[in-house]
């Protein structure tokens, strides 16, 4: 790439984001964030609630206008949403008036894939997330886990380079969450997307990610970026490994310090 504006993966430089609250006061949500996510790597954003980790994800998605600084991808500087950055939301954001198949076909249609070819591709992604047999169901007829599978299939089918995930398993029950985590890892190994994954679950972040950024309480800054790299293992067995639990404990202390600071108390 000779174009200096493009990078592999995602490069965020000195990003700040502020907005006006209803009372008119300026709220600084993100402050001077610099972060680089290499191509095909899995990056988790961790932090206390309200730290702006979802806001950061929405900035990368191009949904919120950055106040200063820049976000760059292989397609150049991010100024608006684009199909090379697929998003999976916590509450699925499926089109409720479309069936599972129609939802998956929507993004394919936007990328110019139509007709039988699109149907075949949609079916293969529905199969990938184990929803075969539910193609003609409406989202309201599916469980939360199934809806999130459908949302994942819709996003993957549009073949984005980057996958932005906003607490995608946060609304699911514990068992479904574990299964979805395993399946997401399997899919990621298969497709090698660049992933930014927002979560408040430390173990989830350590299990899934190559690298983890711990964010501070508002205004959101990146406190520390830590390498994890347990995501090459085959299953949830890693959860019992001492190295795994130690890292979870270490990161949890960092997050907890931020939570305590947000509450205005000293860490005990």
């Amino acid at each position, binding site marked *: 790439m000779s174009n200096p504006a493009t990078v592999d993966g995602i490069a965020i430089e000195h990003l700040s984001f502020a907005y006006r609250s209803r009372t008119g006061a300026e709220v600084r949500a993100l402050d001077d964030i610099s972060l680089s996510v290499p191509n095909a790597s899995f990056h988790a954003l961790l932090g206390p609630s309200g730290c702006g980790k979802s806001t950061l994800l*929405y900035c990368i*998605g*191009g*949904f919120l206008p950055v106040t200063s600084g820049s976000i760059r991808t292989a397609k150049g500087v991010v100024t*608006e*949403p*684009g*199909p090379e*950055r*697929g*998003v999976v*939301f916590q*509450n699925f*954001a*499926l*089109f*409720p*008036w*479309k069936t599972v198949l129609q939802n998956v076909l*929507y*993004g394919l249609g*936007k*990328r110019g894939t139509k007709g039988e070819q699109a149907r075949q591709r949609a079916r293969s992604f529905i199969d990938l997330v184990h929803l075969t047999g539910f193609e003609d169901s*409406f*989202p*309201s*007829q599916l469980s939360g886990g199934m809806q999130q599978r459908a949302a994942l299939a*819709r*996003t993957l089918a*549009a073949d*984005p380079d980057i996958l*932005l995930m906003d607490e995608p398993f946060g609304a699911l029950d514990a068992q479904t969450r574990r299964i979805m985590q395993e399946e997401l890892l399997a899919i990621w190994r298969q497709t090698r997307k660049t992933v930014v994954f927002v979560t408040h679950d430390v173990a989830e972040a350590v299990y899934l990610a190559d690298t983890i950024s711990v964010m501070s309480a508002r205004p959101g800054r990146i406190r520390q970026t830590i390498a994890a790299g347990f995501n090459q293992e085959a299953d949830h067995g890693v959860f019992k490994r001492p190295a795994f639990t130690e890292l979870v404990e270490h990161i949890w202390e960092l997050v907890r310090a931020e939570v305590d600071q947000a509450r205005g108390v000293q860490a005990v």
Partner: protein
Amino acid sequence: MTRTMIRYAPLLILAALWEALTRLGIVPRSLLPPVSDVFAAFVGMLRDGSLLSNAAESFGRGAAGLAAAVLIGFLLGAGMALRPRFHAVIGPLVQAFYPLPKTALVPLVMIWFGLGDIGKIVLIFLGCLLPVTLGTYNGVRGVDRVLVWSARSLGARPREVVLEVMLPAALPQILTGLRTATAFAFLLMVASELIIANNGLGYLIGSLGDNGAYPAMYAAIFTVIALGFCADQAFAALSAHLLRWRA
């Protein structure tokens, strides 16, 4: 079948009671003709075609006014929801116009648009406009932003999002507004024809009453009720089909 019977049993009981009260002379026939007479008059008017021809006239006016209201109301509501400047101009007008009983406009509209079809269509249009406008406005404004973001990140242009995401997401509230508008259309159609017209169901009710043809007048009133009921039922069935995706 039995459930339908049970559902409409109160109506049958009421009809029987009505028939008995009038036949026994407890209620004078000059005030209330027996149901059987009303039914006979209904059949007579069906045969001579007066019921159908007047109903067709009314239906034409109602449909024209309602269709115009749906088109303009949808554009106004969507415009208000999507363009703050447009809302700043139109919003106060809508608020001022909203509490006005639209029947109060009958004389005014007749002066402006004449005593013919146009005046009545304008009146129906004005009466049906705001329910559609407000239904669309509230529906579009309430669309979850993540649905819009989803569509955008899947490659939809902002323009495409309006028709492909906002319209279907707002459809439940648009349909609620449309249902209210349909009821208003019937009300204003009959009211305007009652006041001045030379055909239509409202005219039929008024002229039969003036001529003392009470059984026929009741038959015409029941026809309006039945048509209103059928329109609402058909509307409910259409809504249920369009919104079948809801849990």
